[in-house]
């Protein structure tokens, strides 16, 4: 029920921004559409909040607090890659390789956010997240990095910030 209400209000906010008309006719159309969409697909937007982690409000705040850090990282990494690209001896500076590391993140949404952040920061691309078939080890990230320095920075600070934003607080 909580997820349905949340989905409805997100849809409605989206409708209001995109429509920009606040008269009764358009508002009632919007509410009708949002109700229909919510009814059919409320389980798509918050698939796991029905489980133990029910606190979507905390997730949203966490993501909002994480965004400035992500944008800053994107800016720094962009400048680094721009420096390499414009450098006369670019081919000597890059050393593309694939490396793997284990993650401590457990929630799917946190892992997806981490993978997207890695790919958004230039110089590193997430190739895959491998799940241990036996389920004993944590999931393994495979990341394709442009330089050794870009690889050395992972998982590092970014992972702990994601953990702070999206992982359930355990102590």
């Amino acid at each position, binding site marked *: 029920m909580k997820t349905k209400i949340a989905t409805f209000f997100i849809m409605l906010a989206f409708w209001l921004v995109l429509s*920009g008309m606040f008269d009764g006719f358009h508002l009632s159309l919007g509410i009708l559409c949002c109700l229909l969409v919510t009814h059919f697909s409320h389980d798509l937007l918050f698939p796991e909040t029905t489980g133990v982690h029910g606190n979507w409000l905390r997730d949203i705040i966490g993501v909002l607090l994480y965004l400035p850090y992500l944008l800053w990282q994107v800016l720094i990494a962009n400048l680094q890659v721009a420096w390499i690209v414009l450098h006369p001896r670019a081919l000597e500076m890059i050393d*593309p390789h694939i490396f793997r590391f284990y993650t401590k993140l457990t929630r799917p949404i946190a892992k997806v956010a981490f993978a997207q952040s890695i*790919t*958004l920061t230039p110089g590193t691309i997430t190739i895959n997240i491998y799940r241990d078939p036996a389920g004993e080890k944590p999931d393994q990230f495979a990341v*394709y990095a442009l330089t050794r320095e870009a690889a050395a920075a992972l998982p590092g600070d970014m992972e702990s910030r994601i953990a702070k934003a999206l992982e359930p607080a355990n102590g």
Partner: protein
Amino acid sequence: MTTAAIVFILAGIFFFFVGVVGILRFPDFYTRLHAAGKADSLAAVLVVIGVALYNLQEINPGNILVSIKIILIAVFIYMASATATHALTKGALVVGVEPWEKGKKK
């Protein structure tokens, strides 16, 4: 406001330029994706912010709404471009495109 918009758009154009130079200079498919992903993640967003600021010359509710819509474009670029870059890399690896390695001649 116009000055800030011009600065943002010029910075965006600069990073797009760097991205294009990177695509031309880098040796193989994967490294070129790095350059392309950079143009997506920073340059496009800078241009979008610049346009949004330019639109706000007269601050009234209508203009603010349009600017929010323009910023939403940036949000979708962020979600879509990272997914696309990842899918391209994974796809190329699955098909077996050889990654360029340092010191290895073709």
